[in-house]
């Protein structure tokens, strides 16, 4: 089975089949259900909300279809297997199993019961639904194609520059996200801060505190993954986040070669920020276009989107060759 077929099966076909099966089960059970049916359950597992089963019948196909379309677009749009993509695809069958299983299971516990209030507990359905979903996601994770080993760089095409035998050289650059990305993130941040204000006003204090902490953490991680300093010198290359962590290095002894490459964030790395694509190929992806790709002797690569990548690659190659 080809890599692409595996992705389609795991991320699109299986979830759609699960959703279809749950809709069939619900339709079959429909005549034997009480009216109204239980649609909400309390913390003890006993039903506490009642209504029409139509919500379940619509929810499952709509959500699973929408997610499948998203997964399909991800498969179509990418050229390499990225970790990001693997996560998105493994979530698809999980989502279908949990939604379809809980909806169909929740209705099945009421089949043949005259009054929905007498229906059994939802807890077994919850356990089976989530357990099954997690098991399936794990199975799919391993069924999905492992990242392919990255192709070798052609040593003849690697750039170099003139460096006297005892000349010392350094290349330093601060990296920032592309301007449009900054604008998008700024708007998102404004919305989230607005949300925080609303949550603060209306929600109970613990919820507000959790929300604000979560927002703060996401903002911190975002800033940490979008602002970097990259430095090349006689010790190799260091990419350090503006927060000081994370920090990625390739010591000069480990530099097999460096090249200037062109990066398309969505199709090549599955997005922006710190990304893995291919086997042990880590990307710090802040913009589309030129990037420095450093191959390790120990396997894998570090890719950093930056201007002046040709000179950076040339310096690393020359330093590595001289060492």
């Amino acid at each position, binding site marked *: 089975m080809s890599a692409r077929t595996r992705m389609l099966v795991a991320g699109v076909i299986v979830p759609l089949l699960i959703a279809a099966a749950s809709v069939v089960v619900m339709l079959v059970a429909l005549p034997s259900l009480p009216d109204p049916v239980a649609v909400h359950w309390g913390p003890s597992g006993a039903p506490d909300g009642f209504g029409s089963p139509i919500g379940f019948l619509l929810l499952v196909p709509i959500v699973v279809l929408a997610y499948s379309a998203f997964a399909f677009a991800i498969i179509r749009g990418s050229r390499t297997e990225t970790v990001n993509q693997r996560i998105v695809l493994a979530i698809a069958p999980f989502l279908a199993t949990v939604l379809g299983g809980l909806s169909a299971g929740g209705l099945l516990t009421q089949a043949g019961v005259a009054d929905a209030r007498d229906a059994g507990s939802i807890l077994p359905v919850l356990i089976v639904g989530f357990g099954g979903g997690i098991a399936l996601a794990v199975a799919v994770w391993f069924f999905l194609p492992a990242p392919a080993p990255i192709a070798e760089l052609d040593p003849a095409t690697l750039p170099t520059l003139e460096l006297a035998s*005892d*000349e*010392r*050289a*350094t*290349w*330093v650059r601060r990296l920032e996200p592309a301007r449009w990305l900054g604008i998008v993130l700024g708007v998102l941040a404004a919305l989230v801060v607005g949300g925080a204000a609303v949550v603060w006003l209306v929600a109970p204090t613990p919820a507000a505190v959790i929300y604000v902490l979560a927002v703060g953490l996401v903002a911190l991680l975002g800033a940490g993954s979008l602002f970097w300093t990259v430095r090349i010198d006689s010790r190799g290359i260091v990419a350090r986040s503006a927060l000081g962590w994370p920090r990625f290095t390739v010591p000069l002894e480990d530099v097999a070669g460096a090249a200037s490459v062109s990066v398309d964030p969505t199709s090549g790395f599955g997005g922006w920020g710190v990304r893995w694509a291919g086997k042990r190929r880590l990307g710090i992806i802040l913009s589309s276009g030129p990037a420095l790709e450093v191959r390790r002797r120990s396997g894998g690569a570090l890719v950093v989107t930056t201007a002046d990548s040709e000179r950076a690659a040339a*310096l690393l190659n020359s330093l590595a060759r001289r060492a």
Partner: protein
Amino acid sequence: MYLTVDPGSATPLFEQLVSGIRAQVIDGSLTQGERLPAAADLADSLDVNVHTVLRAYQVLRDEGFLDLRRGRGATVASRARDYAQLGRDIERVVAEAKKLDLTPAALAALIRKAYE
């Protein structure tokens, strides 16, 4: 920013740093307001004394290329200066000097003389 220093050269290290950074401000590869590496980091990378880097930064501040502020480190001066024309002129002068087999030192001496 790309910088090289050659300890074997007769030119003092701080002067090599000064001319390297100045050239990049003039050719536009360092842009207005851009932050330069912390002196300690740069000294570390080039294996020179941190005072050598600080001296180079101070010279460049005195020449109006850099702003030095406590806490913010060195930034490319925001004083509006457009070096594009000068960059093009220098290219032309250098090309002409090469045509006439003038050494860089000879050309530099001529330019210095023109200043006097």
